[in-house]
Structure formats: structure tokens, C-alpha cells
């Protein structure tokens, strides 16, 4: 099973100290205070790809659309067991929607023979959840979204479990080659070993710009997009909670009092 796994570097918005401020253009956010991590769902996709490789053989190619800064997440995926990597990097790629991104990814892996293309089911920053499915459509192969379990049935057949609302799993059979978008929680992403990290530094990250993809300018970026984010705004905030003020002893005391008054303790 040869697998290409798409990874995205995102701001670590799970950190409560990460504040999101719209920049003066209105189309971007101030990234100066962000720390960047691999997108959560992509981390599970990398693990799933490596687990399949360990069980069934084959190679794992890590694919990313990003600047040199993204080498950090690419190297980590290589350290965990990825064999090689492709990074698609061109300033013309900026502003790409999921369709343009899928087009760039497709061009990036056009010479990679893979049975499965994996991607996280959702990015934590823009949350489109569309790139993997769009990629499958462009490649003309079947796909399944929100996949939590993958089992190889034969050379060209997988049994997969798609997570639906309420945690219900929809079990499907799907033929390879296919695209799977991977949901979080289906495996336990490993930590890279020191040996892995050392070896990853020697693995190749192939960098491709627009010319190398063979795409034209109007196929990427905003020009190649079907929907464009034109203006950020601060959401209207509903009525906020009554905030209890004071040091931890005081706020805890107030809260205990409220819970008692309401008959909850």
C-alpha cells in the first residue's frame, strides 16, 4: 500500500493564549504571536498511513502546500515513518480555496503511484473539510470522508468506518485507489523517536513551485478558486455569562454559593 498523506501546518488555536486578531487588510489575521503545529486531523492521518505501511508494506509520501516554515511538520511526519515528502510552495498559491488547493495537491502527487491518498477531514483554522473530497473528484477516484477506521481487505479493497453524528460508524467497502479524509480519535498518534528525527533530516523534501506543477496562474490562488473569503469580521457576541471576579479562592467561594443557592450541591 503506497500512501500519500496531505498535511497542513496551522496555528495552535487549541492554546487558550492564542488570540485571533483581524489584520488591517481585513482578509488576514495577525500571525505574529501564533505558534504553528500540524493540523490535528492530519496528525491522525499520518499515523493511520504509517500503521498501514507497517502492516502491509509500501511507502508513505508526505505532501504539503506551504512555505519553508512548514518543513517543521513535514520533518516530524518523516521522523514518524514517512519515506519522502513533497512541498508545494509558490506565492501564487496564496488565497487558494479548497478547489485550488486540491488542484495543487493533485499536480504535486501526479508522479507518485499511490493506492490511498489521505488527508485530515478538517483543518482547525479554516475548517472547510473539502480538500480531500475535491481532490478525489479531480483525480476521478472514489473517496470517503470522516474515516475513523481502515482495514485492508485485499489488494484493491478497504473496509472503512466513517464517523457520523452521535459517533455512529458507517461501515463501507471502497476500492483503491481512493482518497480517505481521516477523522481524529481513530488511532493514537505516536511521538517521533530520536532515531526517527535523525533519519528524517536526511530524507528528501522535494519542493515544487507553480512551474513545476504544470498548472497555470489562473488555476491556483484566488483566480483558481470558486469561492473566496473577502472580509473577516468579529462575530456578534450573544449575552455573556455572569463573570465571577476575584482570586481563585474568591471565585470558587462565589461559585459554591451559587450552586448551593440553586440546590445543586
Amino acid at each position, binding site marked *: 500500500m503506497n500512501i500519500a498523506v496531505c498535511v497542513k501546518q496551522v496555528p495552535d*488555536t487549541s492554546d*487558550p493564549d492564542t488570540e485571533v486578531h483581524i489584520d488591517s487588510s481585513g482578509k488576514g489575521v495577525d500571525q505574529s504571536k501564533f505558534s504553528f503545529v500540524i493540523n490535528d486531523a492530519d496528525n491522525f492521518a499520518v499515523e493511520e498511513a504509517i500503521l498501514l505501511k507497517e502492516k502491509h508494506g509500501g511507502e508513505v509520501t508526505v505532501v504539503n502546500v506551504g512555505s519553508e516554515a512548514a518543513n517543521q511538520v513535514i520533518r516530524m511526519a518523516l521522523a514518524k515513518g514517512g519515506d519522502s515528502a513533497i512541498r508545494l510552495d509558490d506565492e501564487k498559491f496564496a488565497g487558494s480555496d479548497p478547489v485550488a488547493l486540491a488542484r495543487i495537491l493533485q499536480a504535486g502527487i501526479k508522479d507518485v503511484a499511490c493506492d490511498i491518498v489521505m488527508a485530515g477531514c478538517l483543518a482547525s*483554522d*479554516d*475548517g*472547510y*473539510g*473539502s480538500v480531500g*473530497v*475535491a481532490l478525489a*473528484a479531480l483525480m476521478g477516484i*472514489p*473517496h*470517503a*470522508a*470522516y474515516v475513523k477506521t481502515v482495514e485492508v481487505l485485499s489488494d484493491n479493497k478497504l*473496509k472503512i468506518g*466513517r*464517523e*457520523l*453524528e*452521535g*459517533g*455512529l*460508524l*458507517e*461501515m*463501507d*467497502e*471502497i*476500492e483503491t485507489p*481512493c482518497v480517505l479524509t481521516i477523522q*481524529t*480519535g481513530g488511532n*493514537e498518534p505516536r511521538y517521533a523517536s530520536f532515531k526517527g528525527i535523525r533519519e528524517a533530516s536526511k530524507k528528501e523534501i522535494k519542493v515544487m513551485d507553480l512551474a513545476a506543477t504544470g498548472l497555470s496562474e489562473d488555476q491556483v490562488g484566488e483566480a483558481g478558486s*470558486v*469561492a*473566496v*473569503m*473577502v472580509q*473577516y*469580521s468579529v*462575530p456578534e*457576541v450573544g*449575552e455573556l*455569562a*455572569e*463573570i*465571577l471576579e476575584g482570586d*481563585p479562592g474568591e*471565585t*470558587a*467561594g462565589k*461559585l*459554591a454559593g*451559587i*450552586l448551593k443557592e*440553586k440546590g*445543586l*450541591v
Partner: protein
Amino acid sequence: MHEIFVLAEHRQGELRDVNFEMLTLAGSLDSKVTAVLLGSGMDDFAAKLAPFTDRVIVVDDPMFENFNAIDYQAALKALIEADKPHLVIIPNTGQGADILASLALEMGASFTSDIIGLAIEGDKPVATRAFYGGKINGRIEFKDADLYMVGLREGAIPAGEGTKSGEIQKVDNPVAATATNRKFLSYEQPAIGDVDITQSAMLVSVGRGIREDKNLPMMEELAKLIGADVSGSRAVVDAGWLPTDRQVGISGKTVKPKLYLALGISGAFQHVTGMKGSDVIVAINKDPDAPIFQYADFGIVDDLLKVVPALIDKIKEMKG
């Protein structure tokens, strides 16, 4: 007048609430509203959708008893080509998100996913989406196309009342044969553990803000003290700190306890959808901008690892 198609969603014999949210949105856009219902034995569902529509197109065929992205896409393609709607609204769910992008690309439609609002300006839709976990919104404009498609987030639009009486039109299944490269096999229900949190009177619910699983016993001590069960966010379950059946939210359980004490939970919509019906919601979180404070009745903006021990002491004192 333009026509809007709304793809109805059902599974395991249940018509899902998101249908009425999509139809309410479509009904606000001054267009002809057509629900598209694919399934087997659909008379009852069609009758339930009709009051929210101008018509319901029903493809009643055993092929659609369960969801299959490829069969659904083939049927929708044929129905869209026949009637040429201006806009198609699909639920941004496990089913809908499995077909939105691929159908849109096949149809040459301009589309976007997971919208929380939609308006028509001039002749074109304009969508609102949430970014960065709901901290900011973005306005989405579409490239000119004959067809637009959107995926609507569940719970984003309150469902209205159905006051119309849409005509129910049964059409022949336009799909000749079911897909061979992807097949539905079965559903697997999530395992049910020792505690059913949907029945809990009180929940102490933990999120990534507890930072490490070694802090979990402190939260469990608080829960035990007040007679609550422990639940958590997706992040905590994904990390393996709590079993799957303790997960609150869209992909977990919907809970309505008397007290929901959210500890270190930021309040992403996927979580909030599962707990906003609780009687009293208390949130403790370091981040004053965390969306959870918009849903909580009482909030403490502080480090929960300092507040929770103090709260345990105060409650012990009170109990004597």
C-alpha cells in the same frame, strides 16, 4: 423566480433536524424551495418535509435505503440537470460533507462548505463561515456560475414553522445501477459504557484546558463531591483520557443536565451543540474570549487548576 434544491438527510429511519434548518434558510431567500428526498419507503418523510417546501422530489428506491456518496451524487446530478436549480443546499454533516465538493466539481458549481449564514445579493449568494474555531467570521463570495452549492452547518439556523403545502413529486430513479467501487455495509453503534451521560443529573465536563491526564483525578474528585458524572470534549476523548461514551457534542452525546460545569472547554460549536440545552451552565476557562462564555450562565476566567481545588475546599466546608 430561482429554485433552490435542499438535499434531505435521513439515516436509520430518522429524518434529521438539519432538514428543517436548511428548508427554513431556503425559505428566507425568496425562491422556490424544493426538497430532494432520496430513500426507500419515503412517504412519511415526504409528508413531513412538504410543509416547508413548494415541492418535494422523491426518488423512492431500495438503492437509497442507506447513504452511498456515489449513488447520491449520480442521482443529484441527474435531478439538477433536469430542473436546473440556482442553488443547492446540502447539510454539512457526515453525509453531506461526503458529497458536497465532489458533486460541485462534477457540476461545475461554485461552492463552499460549513456555512453559518447565507444571503442573496443581486443574483448571487453570499455566505458567512466561521474561522479559527468561531473566533472570527468570514464573508465568502462566489465566482460566477450557473449553479451554486453550500453546505449548511447543523444548528446554525433555527428551524421555523412549516406553513406551506409543497407538492410531492415521485420521480423514477435516474441511476441505472448502484456503485461498485464503494458499498455501504452496515452501521456500528458506539459502545455504551458504565455511565449514560445523557441521563446524568449533573456533569463535570473537561476539555483540553485540563492540560494533562494526571489532572483528571482532581476533576473526578469534584464530580464525586457534588454527585456528578464526568464527561468531556472531543479533544479529551481523542487523547484517550476519557472513553468515547463520555464525549459531549455533535459526534458524541447530546446532554441536558441540571448542571453542566465546563472545565477548560473552549466551546467550539461541535461541543456546544451537545450541551447548550443544560439548565445551568458554568464555565471555567483561562481565555476570556472562549465562546463557551456565550453559552454559560456563570463564568470564571482563570486557571482551572487553581479554581477547582479551591472549589473542592469550599464545597467540603459547606457540607461540613
